[in-house]
């Protein structure tokens, strides 16, 4: 049973090894002659004015929360899609009701302009 996941673990292992190796190889092979200008935050760019740890606007949070809510909606669609043929019309109506309720929320969010970047 678990042996059927070997390809997935293989891909994961390849991804990790590729990332670690390529990141360290450039460090190993590349010449390292740092100087002040090279180590600045934006080399040949503007001077940074203050630290990057700044307070972010709540708008980002808004987008993230709405992303999670619709993400969970899609998660529920996954077992539904797998069992779609077995459930038939009944399952279809259930999902329409589910999406319909969330559509009310979506319309509310749009109407309130919560996603507008003003």
């Amino acid at each position, binding site marked *: 049973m*678990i042996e059927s996941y070997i390809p997935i673990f293989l891909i994961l292992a390849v991804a990790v090894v590729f990332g670690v190796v390529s990141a360290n190889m450039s460090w190993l092979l590349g010449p390292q002659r740092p100087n002040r200008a090279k180590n600045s935050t934006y080399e040949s760019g503007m001077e940074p004015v203050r630290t990057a740890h700044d307070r972010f606007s709540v708008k*980002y949070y808004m987008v993230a929360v709405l992303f999670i809510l619709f993400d969970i909606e899609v998660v529920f669609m996954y077992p539904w899609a797998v069992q779609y043929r077995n459930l038939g019309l009944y399952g279809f109506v*259930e999902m329409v009701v589910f999406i319909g309720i969330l559509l009310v*929320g979506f319309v509310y969010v749009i109407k*309130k302009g*919560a996603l507008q970047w003003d």
Partner: protein
Amino acid sequence: MTFETILFYVLALAGIVSALLVITRRNPMHAALFLIVNFVALAGIYLTLHAQFVAITQVLVYAGAIMVLVLFVIMLLNLQNEQDLFEKRSWRSYSGPILSLLLLALLLRTVAFVSGGSFDRISPESERIGTVANIGQQLFTAFVFPFEMASLLLLAAMVGAVILAKKRFP
């Protein structure tokens, strides 16, 4: 040792190490990133327990979406001087460890009670229960009402988030 056992120990080690790193990092951003490693390790453990749907959800919702929110919350709170938080000793710094120990005791008690203290096998029934097909079948027949209620819960969260985040309505 079977392949499954080796996999479990590797994932458990990854989970414990990343969890320790989460609670020892001074930088909250680093802690949050190690939490993602912890979530992925947990997803792997769910897979060894034949709970495919929970594993997928763990990666998709927790490691993906919830962590985005956690990172934004850290940015919103703007913890510029984290050091101050460590120096202040309030009831919070004592209640955390006490509650964690109580939870650990409860978990140990439950595991010992259910499995009789042995961890060497999982129920053969579990191979069937955790599949996506079985969860879909159960969710859309026996548990229709909780499923539809979940959409109302999401709707309430949506409205609540909009009301909390928007100060003025146009």
